[in-house]
């Protein structure tokens, strides 16, 4: 139920504005309709009261104009109709009980208006007792008004007025009109609002597109003033973030560059050590430091290299890496085709595959590498027998500095840049990289690099 309400609840600026518009429109119309009804009622009531008063006076005069009881009764009867009944009688039949009623007072005023000589004693005005005329007596709006006018000779003409109810003019036509106008207004409003909120949607799109890896694209500062301000603020923010990131990256690059001189010195000093075992250990540590610096710098370059793309064989690149790991006593094996000519940058590809095979060994202890030719591309598959990567984390591990288990990464080291760099390099080569479960446990990394002149067909 809550969910349904939430779905019905207008979510966009346009729909909220339309909701407000509809509410305002309905409110305005209801108020107008009510005011119009009341005004019309009052007008109609006063007009019909005036006419009734005139008729009552003329009936009285007509009755007074004849003599004889029977004759007077006949005249009164003849001049009656459905809305105004008149009876002549010797005594006034009306109890003067309605003088405090607004409508009765109005009627008395109309009668006195037209017959200024009408004395207070000569007019009685009131209402039929509840129940008498099948009108369940409304307290304020009683439908049967009674009035008695005294003739000069002391006899009375009694009137019962049943047309006090205002004509029931059913306002359906006006109502339909109102609905039509409302719908039209809403239709136009929807279009205008969509137009007015278009810059807002652009702003949202620009915010979604924003990426620290790319040069910021300034947003056009158009639309209503609030949106222009928002766009300007967004552009400023974008620039600031970019500047901040650039500064940090420059600082990182500067530190990495500056570390090269002390590392070079250490390498030379290590060479002077008499103890070969210590020298090897120092060399290994220095090698690790170099690797970290290299991967930091490679990450900062974002997979781009100054090398031009040229024909190179992927298989020997992978072979060199596998051989190197084998020389370090690691459990790595290579199978598949011996030649895989592609267009590429050797140093970048070496780094990418070195990261992938290194990861397999780090987390899975073994690495099974194979190079295969497929239609339009070559695939390099790296499998390990480690814990693998859960499906929901497979996108996240490509992000910089993301490591799945902090505790594990402390043991295994690494900067959290390996996969980031590998993906950047492979994408720069027009290729693809995907992570899968290896049947029987472990992770399988599949890299596709297009053959020269071909593109990878995703499907």
């Amino acid at each position, binding site marked *: 139920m809550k969910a349904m309400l939430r779905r019905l609840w207008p979510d966009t600026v346009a729909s909220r504005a339309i909701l407000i518009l509809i509410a305002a429109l309905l409110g305005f119309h209801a108020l107008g309709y009510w005011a119009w009804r009341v005004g019309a009622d009052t007008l109609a009531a006063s007009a019909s009261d005036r006419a009734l008063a005139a008729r009552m006076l003329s009936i009285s005069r007509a009755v007074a104009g004849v003599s004889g009881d029977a004759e007077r009764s006949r005249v009164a009867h003849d001049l009656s109709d459905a809305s105004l009944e008149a009876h002549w009688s010797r005594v006034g039949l009306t109890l003067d009980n309605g003088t405090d009623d607004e409508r009765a007072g109005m009627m008395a005023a109309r009668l006195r208006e037209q017959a200024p000589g009408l004395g207070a004693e000569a007019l009685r005005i009131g209402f039929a007792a509840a129940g008498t005329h099948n009108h369940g007596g409304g307290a304020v709006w009683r439908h049967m008004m009674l009035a008695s006018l005294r003739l000069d000779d002391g006899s009375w003409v009694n009137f019962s007025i049943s047309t006090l109810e205002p004509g029931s003019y059913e306002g359906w036509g006006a109502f339909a009109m109102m609905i039509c106008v409302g719908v039209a207004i809403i239709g136009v409003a929807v279009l205008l609002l969509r137009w007015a909120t278009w810059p807002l949607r652009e702003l949202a799109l620009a915010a979604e597109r924003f990426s620290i890896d790319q040069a910021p694209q300034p947003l056009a500062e158009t639309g209503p003033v609030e949106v222009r301000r928002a766009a300007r603020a967004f552009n400023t923010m974008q620039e600031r973030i970019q500047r901040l990131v650039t500064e940090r990256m420059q600082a990182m690059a500067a530190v990495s560059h500056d570390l090269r001189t002390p590392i070079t010195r250490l390498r030379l000093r290590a060479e002077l050590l008499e103890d070969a075992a210590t020298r090897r250990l120092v060399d290994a540590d220095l090698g690790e430091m170099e690797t970290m610096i290299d991967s930091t710098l490679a990450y900062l370059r974002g997979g781009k290299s100054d090398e031009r793309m040229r024909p190179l064989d992927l298989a*020997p690149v992978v072979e060199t890496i596998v051989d190197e790991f084998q020389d370090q006593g690691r459990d790595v094996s290579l199978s598949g085709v011996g030649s895989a000519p592609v267009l590429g940058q050797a140093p970048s590809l070496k780094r990418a595959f070195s990261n992938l095979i290194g990861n397999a060994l780090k987390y899975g202890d073994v690495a099974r590498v194979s190079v295969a030719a497929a239609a339009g591309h070559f695939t390099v598959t790296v499998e390990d027998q480690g814990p693998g990567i859960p499906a929901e984390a497979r996108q996240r591990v490509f992000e910089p500095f993301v490591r799945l288990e902090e505790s594990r990464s402390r043991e295994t080291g690494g900067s959290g840049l390996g996969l980031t760099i590998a993906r950047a390099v492979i994408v720069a080569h027009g290729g693809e990289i995907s992570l899968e479960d290896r049947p029987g446990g472990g992770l399988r990394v599949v890299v596709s690099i297009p053959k020269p002149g071909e593109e990878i067909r995703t499907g």
Partner: protein
Amino acid sequence: MQQPGRPARTGADEPGQDVAADHGLEGPGLDYGRVLIVDDDPEIRLLVARFLQRHGYQVAGAPDGVAMMAALAHGDADLVILDLMLPGRSGFDLCRDVRAASQIPIVMLTARGDEADRIRGLEGGADDYIAKPFSPRELLARVRAVLRRARAASGGRAADNAVVTFDGWVMDLRRRELFSPPGVLIDLSTGEFDLLAVFVEHANRVLSREALMQFAKTRTSDDPFDRTIDVQISRLRRKLGADASGGQLIKTVRGAGYMLAAEARRQHGEA
């Protein structure tokens, strides 16, 4: 060999003593030479000097371009190790300045991973490059290889001998790149490249395992995982065999060693 007038600001400028004969392929005495190291870091000058002296070179140091030019004017260097990041005139400019006047071999020290620097340096006339931070043994191997090439050019530039072709394969010694006959770059490890360079320099000559091993030893002396020369050769064969024509290039000569069975030709200019 301390020359009067040459700026001698650091201990690195101690003259090298001919401590040990260099055990290169071409025998003692031949690889021996005088090296000028140009780097603004006094410690690096000192350490490189000490290291190269231990391997039989005479080493002098210069902290910047002015000192380098002064040292070269005296003509007492066979090879220059030139850092690209120098105060005042940059290594690139200095490289061009030197080339305008002389053919002395230059090994550049570039920033690691900075391909643009490497390319600019090689185009500026350097004969080889080595990325900082470098391994001292790597530096030694490069110095030795460049001096050997320069001598093979008999007075000419080492760079003039930088491109060698054999059986359709192209080997660029300066850029350290190997191309298969269809022109596809074939990646080699540093060890494999240097091994192939030795074969190419001695094409159609049988090289004993001992000679090759001696060579390999100077590169990776006490590496516990050092593979025998046979492993290196089988890896090299596999990579050469990636192209059908290269499979039988390195022949085993029973009882004698290995041989590159191809005519090697030196090309002038760039690959």
